[in-house]
């Protein structure tokens, strides 16, 4: 039970980072942290032995691979945004606002 609490805390730390930070790199790192927390939660919930563990491991794979793809695309987009705006502060990127 304690482990699950720590995993949820990890996930919430990532979400906190995504919601409160304005730097794009920090937001990407927040996505990575929350994805790691999600993986942990899946592993811990599915850790009841037998087939459940295998299913949980497979779901963890999918989360990891999808998360890594999302992160890499986010990195590519943030590099282009930095070249365009000269900053990584999301509050200064107002082109698509409203």
């Amino acid at each position: 039970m304690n482990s699950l609490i720590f995993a949820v805390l990890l996930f919430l730390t990532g979400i906190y980072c995504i919601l409160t930070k304005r730097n794009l790199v920090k937001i990407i790192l927040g996505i990575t942290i929350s994805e790691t927390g999600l993986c942990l939660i899946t592993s811990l919930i599915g850790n009841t032995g037998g087939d459940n563990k295998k299913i949980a491991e497979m779901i963890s794979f999918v989360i990891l691979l999808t998360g890594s793809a999302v992160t890499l695309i986010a990195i590519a987009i943030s590099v282009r945004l930095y070249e365009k705006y000269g900053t990584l502060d999301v509050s200064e990127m107002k082109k698509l606002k409203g």
Partner: protein
Amino acid sequence: MNTIDIILSLSVLAAIVAVESKRILHAIFSVGTLCVLIFVFHIKEHALVSGAIQLAVELSILFTVARIFINKGVKFIESGGLVLGRVIFLFFLVTFLAAAFVVSGELLDINSVLSQIMSSFASKLDAQKTSAHLFRAFDMLFILISFFAVIVGVMTVMRKKGHEDKK
């Protein structure tokens, strides 16, 4: 509080440091530490493939982030000054040492060269269980410190390359 709880609490601490750090390298190092800790967790749970994939994918992402952003000369120092400063590197070292000592007793039977040398010494000394654990702890510590040194080395080279590119 068992071993897994300690590993997970350290990983939460690493995540908080990553979120609150003011420099890109510090944040990346923190997330790297987090990845290593989660890797240890997966191994402890006997999910070796998950752990290996986690470590490989996350660390490659972090290296990509560091390399791209350092080469682009992105400034990552936020306003308000450097709160955590160089103390963060001490944190990494302490985390690695703690992880090494926590997991060494019951984690893996890693058959590295050092372990073989140690175990040969141990057999000569008619080692008891405690000394065997100690040798394994040193072995794990050696591996983790080597890993840490490799990461620091790669990051330093990338940083120098970034500075050269900027000039």
